[in-house]
Structures are given as structure tokens and as C-alpha cells.
């Protein structure tokens, strides 16, 4: 109920910032688990993705965003859950798999942090491993325009247009051993990078 209200609020207020163009929303499965993988251009990304996707998305978010009671309460209301990024975090993986096994959608910004210069950063291998462990359909989402509205290096939002392009669900089999997952990492990384660059128009960063 609160999540739905937040969606309506975001959709109502967004015209103050600019227009949102959405393509391929029909690629979000109507039922069953899915992993939504997006590039990360600005703080606005999760707000707008959750506002337009009809099904609730449980978004993995960095643990520091739960440090204050208020921010933590907002994050939980928006169905976010924390991940500790400076050490291997089995609980974040367990919870992601549990949410998927309950038939829900999990959202992950696979670069791990907002882009500095608009380009796509290296994908996090931990997330790729999670994808290969879960075996759930992966819906790639390319975000473009958000960087021009609020780049990481500037504190002010400028009006602008944002485009969300959802791609066809990608199927990766659930692999049961770490060895199998490690062997499949390079190809998985190549396929998802290719999907995100093509959907967002962002080139891969050189670092």
C-alpha cells in the first residue's frame, strides 16, 4: 500500500523534472520471479524504475543507506534491503534467493555505484554469480538521460528527459557449483554488458 502510494507520488512529481519515455515494459514477467538489472546513472534511477514497473521490486541497496533511522525506514518501505559491499555478504545473497523463490522481483544496479562520467562501469561479479545461482529470468533495463539530470559530480538537479528501455528477458541456467558459475562468468558478463550498452546507449568505461 505504501509502496503503491510512493509509486503514484513519484509519477505525479516527475513532470517537475522532465518527461519519462518507457520502452519494453511488457518484458517484465507478469508473474513469477525475475531479476531486473539496470545501469546506474543517478540517485533518481531507483525512484523512477520502481515508479514505472507495475510489479513491486525488492531492490538491493548499499548498507550505509540504512544507517539513519529515517533513511532506513524509507528504504524498507520501498522494499530495499541492505548489502555490505566491502566483504562477501552471504545474507544479501540468501535474501535475494528467498525473495525470488517467493515469486517476486529483485532489482540490482549491477555497477554497484553511480557512474562518474556517464559510461557503463565494470559489472560486479558477485551479482553475476547471484544471477547464475538463481536461474531466474533477467530483465535488462537501460537507463539514459538520468546522468544529464543529476550527474554524480554535481549537487543540483536540472530538468531533462529520461528514457528507460527494458530488454527481452535473458535466460541463464541455475548453476549449482562455484566452479560452474566461475566458468560461466565471462560470457554472462559479456551478454549483460552488451544488453545494457545497447539499451542505455552508454559505452563501457575504460577503467
Amino acid at each position: 500500500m505504501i509502496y503503491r502510494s510512493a509509486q503514484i507520488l513519484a509519477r505525479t512529481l516527475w513532470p517537475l523534472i522532465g518527461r519519462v519515455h518507457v520502452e519494453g515494459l511488457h518484458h517484465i514477467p507478469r508473474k513469477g520471479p525475475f531479476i531486473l538489472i539496470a545501469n546506474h546513472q543517478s540517485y533518481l534511477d531507483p525512484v523512477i524504475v520502481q515508479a514505472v514497473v507495475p510489479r513491486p521490486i525488492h531492490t538491493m541497496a548499499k548498507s550505509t543507506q540504512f544507517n539513519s533511522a529515517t533513511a532506513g525506514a524509507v528504504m524498507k518501505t520501498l522494499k530495499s534491503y541492505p548489502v555490505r559491499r566491502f566483504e562477501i555478504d552471504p545474507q544479501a545473497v540468501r535474501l535475494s534467493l528467498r525473495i525470488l523463490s517467493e515469486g517476486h522481483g529483485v532489482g540490482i544496479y549491477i555497477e554497484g555505484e553511480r557512474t562518474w562520467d556517464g559510461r557503463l562501469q565494470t559489472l560486479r561479479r558477485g551479482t553475476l554469480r547471484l544471477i547464475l545461482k538463481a536461474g531466474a529470468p533477467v530483465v535488462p533495463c537501460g537507463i539514459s538521460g538520468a546522468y544529464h539530470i543529476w550527474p554524480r559530480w554535481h549537487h543540483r538537479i536540472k530538468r531533462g528527459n529520461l528514457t528507460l528501455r527494458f530488454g527481452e528477458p535473458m535466460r541463464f541456467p541455475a548453476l549449482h557449483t562455484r566452479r560452474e558459475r566461475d566458468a560461466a562468468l565471462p560470457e554472462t558478463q559479456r551478454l549483460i554488458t552488451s544488453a545494457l550498452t545497447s539499451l542505455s546507449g552508454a559505452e563501457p568505461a575504460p577503467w
Partner: protein
Amino acid sequence: MALSDLLWACPDCGEVGAIGPEGSCTCGVVFSRGRGGHIDARYPDGAVVERTAAEWMDRLPAPEELLERAAAEGEPFRRAHVLAQEVVGSANVRGGGRFLNRIERYGPAVKGSLSLTRDSAIYETLDAGGTARTWAFEDITAVQGSSNTLQIKGRGQPLVSFRFLDDSIFLWELLLHAALRDFYRRTGRGEIVEFQPRVTTDR
């Protein structure tokens, strides 16, 4: 964060750390946000050049090149004033009737300096008798660039989060990555493929 966090060197004169938080370089060029996420450079003769952030970034020196230059001048390679916060504990987060995860709790912010050498990163507080923490590169388990902090985790040590007071966080992240890569190559440990959640090599 400021434009000087992104443009940690001047794309025009190449001087590292020459751009102030307001975007002015000591060479006279003033950088500012242009259309959307584009960046304008205003030259002393009045000419204005607009490029994307990525195009400007491609004109900056490679971090490896900076390390080579710094090595020729002696250690430390770089030093910056920082506000440091150590993780002092953790707290459980619950939501929707279930346990979500543990999150870290930080201690007070302490002013100090962070130095980068050929084989280590060294943090010293500015207080009299202040403690020092040294991370030999072989003991660094993770390097994490967050929104406005750089976090270092050492083996058997708490996570420490640094906010840079007079230097670019992006430059520090790139330099620390480059220095760790160089250390791993020199010591035959392999090629680093990931800096978090754990420094991992291709072996």
C-alpha cells in the same frame, strides 16, 4: 561532490589537483556544468568548448602514469587531508517481518591524513599522539568507492571510511586501484579482476 572530484586533473594543462571546487584551474581555464551532464571549458581568451564528461575524462593522464611520475619524485606518492570513520559495530535490520541483514555502525569522524606509498596506505590522525593505521597492500582485502567516501578494509581490521577534504575521491580510488594492481604484478600474485567485496585475482 564537486566537479573537481571528477576532473582530478586539468584536461587542458594536465596539472593534477589544479582545479578548485568551483571549477577554476590555475592555468586560467574555468570548467563548469554545461547542458545536462556536459562540461564547458571557458578559456582566458573567452572561447568556450563543450564536451561530454567522458570526453574530458579521456584527456586526463592514466593513473599508472601518475604513479610512475610520483615514484620518480619519492614517497609518499600522494597525501590528502581526510575525515576518517571506523566501523565500531553492527546492527540488525529487520523489515516486513523478517531479518534483512546486518549493517555497519560508524564511530566519530576524526581528522587526519591519508598517504599512499609504493606498498601501503597510511592513515594518521592529526591529534597529538594520534593513532596511525597502516595497510600493507598484501593485507588490503577490499577497496570500495562509495557515494562520497573511499572505504578500505584490511585483514583483521575494521572498515575505515574516508571523506577527502582537499583532494578528489575519484583520483584516490583510481590511484589506489593502480597501486594495488602494480603491487600484485610486482609480487607475482596475478592480475586483479575485482576490488570488492574482496580483492580478487585471475588465478
